[in-house]
């Protein structure tokens, strides 16, 4: 199946692209999507997105379509054709 993953702010800069379309074997949980894109984009990207246990950092906001979802919601499965957006936190200045 195909899933589109979009990036915003620091994590977009680390990815070097605004979005990826990734191929997966079948419906999966959000953390698996995070680990899949971390493999594509390397260490500096992975450090922003994943903690030392390769789990998604809770400060990275994740959306399915326009709705925020929680990384630890184990009832959620990402399905073919969905768009996931990852927003890294930003501030004023």
């Amino acid at each position, binding site marked *: 199946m195909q899933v589109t993953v979009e990036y*915003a*702010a*620091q994590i*977009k*800069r680390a990815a070097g692209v605004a979005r990826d379309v990734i191929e997966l074997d079948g419906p999966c949980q959000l953390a698996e999507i995070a680990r899949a894109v971390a493999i594509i984009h390397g260490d500096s990207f992975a*450090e*922003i997105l994943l903690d030392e246990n390769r789990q998604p*950092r*809770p*400060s990275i*906001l994740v*959306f399915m379509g*326009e*709705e*925020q*979802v*929680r990384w630890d919601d184990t009832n959620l499965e990402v399905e073919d054709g969905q768009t996931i*957006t990852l*927003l*890294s*936190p*930003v*501030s*004023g*200045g």
Partner: protein
Amino acid sequence: MALLTDHEKAVYEWQMWVPGFGEAGQQALKDASVLVSRIGGLGSVVAYELAAAGIGRLVLAHAGDIKPSDLNRQLLMTHDRIGTPRVDSATSRLKELNPRLEILAVPENVSDKNAARLVGEVDLVVDCAPLFPERFAMNRQCVEQGKPLVDCAMYDCEFQITTILPGQTPCLACLYPEDPPAWRREFPVFGAVSGSVACLGAMEAIKVLSGLGEPLCGTLLTCDLRDMTFQRRQLLIRDDCPVCGTSHEACST
């Protein structure tokens, strides 16, 4: 409460023509007090727009002196005041625009030590701060004191903004349960980006204080000015949030 003077009615005539705002909205702004923290690229423009709109009182919190690298975006700072306190330059510029404005200039950044006092001074807070610990301190006090918090943020050519109404919407700690380890105080940004989100932040403050329109209640507006993509995203209340807890009502503002 001091009623609007004839001079104020003349100054604010154009915005009092806005349906749903009128003289009652203008009076609400005159009676209101807002904390802007800090008065950098974001906060300068928030404060300037609120001063122009006739807010009664501003509390400006920002430590330190003006540096050359402030001048691409901190529009209340001027070249001839480099090396002098930011709050002094800001007070002077704002008073030029609106001499009726009452200003409490605080040469400190918001922290756990002063957040209760500073938030206690005002009706609404606009968060324009660069570091998460000071944003979390403001958020905790806004939740505790039941004060609205307009949260503005930016990076590169992008910005994000949401309005937090304690008890009705997610709070900042619902969004970010930890201090994001990758975030740094200095980052790439244009003044036109900070100014864009600052104008939206000022408008959110005006709306919440006057009852005009619909604030970004539980909604995160994101924008990438590189390609002018604007998106509204719905935010989740975190039931186990250690700051705002479990009791929330539907947004009614």
